[in-house]
């Protein structure tokens, strides 16, 4: 099973792209630790994660082809 992850704002700089496909994730905690293993700088950042356009908490279970969005707060105005 795989999920598609889209990154907003400064997080796409940290990851180096706007979009990723991640294999074999269980819940959000698994996905987060996979992301941080690949992109250790992510741990310094503040962000919220949404699955299929709904903001969720860490224990949320992921299904095949779920769309995950990772968004930081924006400073600018």
């Amino acid at each position, binding site marked *: 099973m795989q999920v598609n992850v889209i990154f907003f704002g400064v997080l796409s700089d940290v990851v180096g792209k706007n979009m990723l496909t991640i294999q074999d994730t269980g819940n959000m905690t698994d996905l987060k630790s996979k992301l941080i293993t690949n992109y250790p700088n992510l741990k310094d950042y503040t962000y919220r994660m949404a699955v299929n356009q709904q903001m969720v908490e860490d224990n949320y279970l992921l299904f095949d082809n779920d769309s995950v969005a990772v968004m*930081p707060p924006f400073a600018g*105005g």
Partner: protein
Amino acid sequence: MNLNKEEIQYYHRHLILPQIGKTGQQALKKAKVLVIGAGGLGCPTLMYLSGAGVGRVGIVDPDKVAVSNLHRQVLYGFSQVGEFKAEAAVNRLKDLNPNIVLKAYTQRLSPENAVDLISQYDVVVDATDNFPTRYLINDFCVYLDKPFVSGSIDRFQGQLSVLNFTDNQGNKCPTYRCLFPNPPAPETAPDCSQNGVIGVLPGIIGNLQANEVIKMICGVGEVLSGKVLMFDALSNQTMLFSIQRNEQAVQQALQNAPDFESFDYESFCSSSQQKINEISAVDLHKKLQNNEKIQLIDVRSIPEFQEELPNAIRIPLNNLQANIHNILKNDCQVVFYCDHGINSIRAIRMLPNHQTLKNVFNLTGGLVAWLKEEKK
């Protein structure tokens, strides 16, 4: 709140819309909206709220119009550079719509004045460019039970939500802290002066903010409450994400309520994870006058200000990694600086073992603070 003859002519295109009509236009006339921040987001919001006929518009901004503002802060002109933005805005807007009351506040929103300012208005617009003010607006709007429309931008993307709204069943909706309970470390969330911004982006997001205010006041359409809109100007993709109210986060906003005036939003929003040595412009001035041996490093790639510190060497942020060894082999004090003092923090974080480097400093507030100090 009847409309006079001139108002009926002015608002004609609203009056013939069944969804607004006379009732909606009268509600707009009765409404009081406080726009906090008269910059990139504030300019379009202010123009369209004034044009729409919001009866009383308050404008909070302590800054003055600068040349580098104009590419996106299109309410102003060259003839107004140096004036307080809030006052320059009022001067333009009263010509746009003489039928409304405009009020300029040239002080910074602070825990001391927030209750007094916000309680005079029905709806607040968060059009600020920094997290201390964003959390301050959130906490005081929660405390005073006011809905607010939050907008924020990063280069080509924008975020929008109506927060702390009470829906027509009386339910309390999510707040900014329900979305982001705690602020990011400042160097992980650069603003427009560090990262740049395409000028038209705050135009789009600011207009969407005005649209939400108008919908809320007229009771028309779906207010963007319980949702966050993310917009990407490069692809025109718009996504809506649903969010939930988090009572714990709301309580966090309220828990200091009696002590609000002493809560330090600046330090709440400053980096807590890794301490970096800061040096103020005053102290740097003294050290240089005492002829202390200090290596100054300017990390700006495209300077906003032409001025430089004496004998500084220029190593733009993206060349830093390759030049680190040359910088740090001598044991003198090193001060990093940039225009606003944020990119220089990012530079220091790129150094190896920066936590143990006792002789490395960041110039607090950057060249802006230095130039202010020099003028004294």
